[in-house]
């Protein structure tokens, strides 16, 4: 999982496989956002889940949030080569500040 002092995690899978990335957070939050960052680009929001939601779906993406364990996960089904990127979770506080995790580097081989 990503957070704290951990280094960037790396995953390598084949196109078509499903993948799940985990994240644990330490600060109080009511919203966890997942961002995707492709090489040479800034991060882009792909899915957002609130504390009153246990699960959120958007196309091939599925996010879960467990506030009791302060953890979140992102699953991608039927991965494509274009899903190759670094994925970050970010905990948002009441002032809209984001605290990002260390990220998961996903490589999807075509």
């Amino acid at each position: 999982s990503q957070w704290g002092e951990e280094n960037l995690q790396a995953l390598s899978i084949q196109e078509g496989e499903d993948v799940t990335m985990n994240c644990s957070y330490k600060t109080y939050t009511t919203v966890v956002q997942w961002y995707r960052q492709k090489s040479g680009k800034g991060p882009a929001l792909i899915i957002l889940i609130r504390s009153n939601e246990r699960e959120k779906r958007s196309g091939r993406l599925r996010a879960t949030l467990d506030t009791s364990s302060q953890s979140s996960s992102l699953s991608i089904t039927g991965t494509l080569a274009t899903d190759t990127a670094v994925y970050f979770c970010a905990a948002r506080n009441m002032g809209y500040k984001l605290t990002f995790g260390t990220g998961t580097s996903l490589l999807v081989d075509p």
Partner: protein
Amino acid sequence: EAGVTQSPRYAVLQEGQAVSFWCDPISGHDTLYWYQQPRDQGPQLLVYFRDEAVIDNSQLPSDRFSAVRPKGTNSTLKIQSAKQGDTATYLCASSLRGRGEQYFGPGTRLTVL
């Protein structure tokens, strides 16, 4: 709609030199953020503005870093005397007040030799 633009895209300096980064947020976005992203790490907030006011600069190394947003639109981040440890990508993001989504620019990749 144009996205967040940043310039320059790359900068290479010797230690002790100064550098400025410029950010043009999405039109109408009142909140602007500057992040530092070291290689293989997540973005770390340095400072953020609402309109022209600094809301939080607690993570900005104030002895060498400064940031302004004088008219509540464009912003400049300056490093007065760069150190090798400043090597990172500097990202600018903007958002609308009360909306959680931040829109990021492509970043400026800084290398300090």
